[in-house]
């Protein structure tokens, strides 16, 4: 299995060389198996190699890359990748299901997301990745909820996370969850979920003054 350092070297040398294909595919598998950290540039390079030579493209690897990007939610990695995947690949399984899940997450339709993600069909690597990533997806959804909710009912949060009780939410030990009080989940207060005072950002950039003064003194 290639290491991240090896991949970095490879990308620096020639990011889109067809000779990198097998190594990058092995690295995608390693990420899916949890043996290597997520590496956006490596996955994008593999999509580019497929883009240059469509006959060598492997739809199962594309689906894995999209799923790995989906797990980075709420980042926009999957949006950036979707521009590189041909329309005909996006329309067929398993890519179609992964992209459908991405759309549901983006529209914050979490209740609909869970059955959709469970229905993703594909090879064992993809299925195992989906199964083993439940907690990661729940954490990401909690992060998104905490952007808007100061507090929310246990029922609503449970539904969004596809869990049955407040205990299951507590077990996630998410840093954005402050406490469970009765039937309410209290999120950690942040600038996003609390009232903002009117803040006026003012001030003149020092660089702007300095360059102006330099001009004047040079006269």
């Amino acid at each position, binding site marked *: 299995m290639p290491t991240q350092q090896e991949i970095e070297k490879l990308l620096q040398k*020639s990011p*889109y*060389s*067809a000779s990198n294909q097998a190594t990058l595919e092995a690295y995608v598998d390693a990420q899916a198996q949890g043996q290597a950290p997520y590496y*956006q540039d490596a996955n*994008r390079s593999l999509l*580019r190699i497929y*883009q*240059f*030579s*469509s006959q060598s493209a492997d739809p199962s690897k594309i689906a894995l890359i999209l799923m790995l990007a989906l797990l980075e939610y*709420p980042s*926009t990695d999957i*949006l*950036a990748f*979707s*521009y*590189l995947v*041909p*329309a*005909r690949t996006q329309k067929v399984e398993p890519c179609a299901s992964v992209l459908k899940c991405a*759309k549901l997450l*983006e*529209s*914050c*339709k979490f209740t609909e997301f869970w059955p959709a993600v469970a229905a993703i069909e594909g090879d064992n690597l993809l299925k195992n990745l989906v199964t083993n990533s439940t907690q990661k997806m729940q954490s990401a959804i909690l992060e*998104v*909820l905490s*952007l*808007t*909710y*100061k*507090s*929310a*009912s246990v029922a*609503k949060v449970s539904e969004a996370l596809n869990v049955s009780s407040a205990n299951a939410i507590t077990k996630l030990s998410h840093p954005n969850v402050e406490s469970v009080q009765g039937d*309410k989940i209290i999120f950690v207060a942040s600038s*996003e*979920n*609390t*009232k*903002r005072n*009117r*803040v*006026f*950002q*003012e*001030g*003149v*950039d020092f660089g*702007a*003054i300095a360059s*102006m003064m330099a*001009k*004047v003194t040079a*006269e």
Partner: protein
Amino acid sequence: MASNTDACVPAALTDFVFDLYDSVTLSQLTEEQSRLYNSEFSDLSKKYFSNAPWPSPQAIASECNGDPLFLAFYRELTHRHWHAVSRPTLRDRMEGWDVYRELFDELLMVAEDDASSTSQPKLFILPQWAFDILHEFVYQFQGFCQFRTTLYASAHKHNLFSGEPSPKAPHHVVENLALMRQEDAADVWSVETVMYYLQRLVAIGTKSSVPVYQYFGIFASVTMSRLECLLADYTSSLQSLAPILEATAVVTKADQPVMTFSEIVSSVFNARLSLTYHAGISFLMLRRYKDAANMVGSLCSFMQRGFKTGQLRKQRNSDQLYKNYDRMVALLAIVTQLCPQQNLVEEGIAKVIREKHGTALAKDNYTELFTFCSPKFVSPVIPDFNKTGPTENVYKLQVNLFETEVASQSTYRELRSYLNLYTSIGVSKLTSFGNDEKSLLALKLKMRQLESNNADAPSLKDASLKSALDIHFYLENDEVVHIDEAEKQRRFENYFMSQSAQSFDIRKDACAVDTTL
């Protein structure tokens, strides 16, 4: 290849070639080369070659001692002229590939020699000239990809891949198909090789301290950014600009002031335009609306002033500038609609947007605006011209994905307009107005975007997540939405600073005017 114009080469032309060769290799004077490249070449072209090719390199080789590198530059310059004044055939396009390969192979070889030598560099080319070469290189690549895709689709339509080709198949399609089926045609304008040359030029340019290689490195980064955008890799398009935006090196030439890499880009207006436009498109597609507006808005304001004062109308390709300006205004129309914030663009530009695109914006017609402002995306795939297969419409894919991206915008706009009316509102009441609680979350999520920490220099790395909304809201007990205004940023100081700087420049110009009678 000898042309008909080889037989009798006018004396004015041989003198021009001789002087140009001198300015490139011996004198290396910026002003002299600028006069030859920017004025004399177009004057001679108009006079002798308005609809004919320039003489071949062999016909003028004696004027430059047969220097292969200079001849490669001459061949590119004259090929570029012919490509612009004629309707290029497939053979012309294929010859273009030879022209650029020859030039870059020679250039890279000489660059390596120059890097290890301590004597005067062997070559000097103006920044404008270096940019024009690289810009045309990607332009011809783009044209070839479009031609190839269209040819494949036409051949497919006329059954030219089957045993029974249509007798109505146009002659030029049959002929071009035969050309593309030749073995050596497979690698013509291959994307890997195009990228290889650009990457090598960037690598050499960032390491070298010789101005000409630095120019090629800088503008290879700009054209690489354009190429990546055309291939729909918006992340790479922005990453390609790192050698310019993160560079600490400077360009030092005896007869010119010391300049940073960014200043070199700004000194060639078309390069600045290309960089800004493609970065704007990339930011838009990656959902970084404020960065797109900052990037494109400032250049549009500059161009608006330039058109008014006549400064930009003097440029040799002013028609093209107007076209690009219009496209960037359409891009800004999209961005300002998706990210409605005060002061996102200057008032003058906001007025132009309202006048030109008010109707499309009122109907949320993003597709019309996007098809107008987007570049002509291309597919790098080389089709197999011996058999039929699926064709990929990359342009359509980008338009469709953009449509999907903005599909919920009308819902968000309506929701935003309700939120603007209240300081707090019950979720049930909001729902009774036809809104959805999930839309609140989705709106906040979508508008939480990466934003460059330094607005003057777009960056992928130096960016942080910020809200691009002009209102702030949160939900309490999933029953009540509290709304307040977003953090305000007064822009008076920027206005004051720019006006002061402008007044200072006017005063300086006024002082310089000779008033003696």
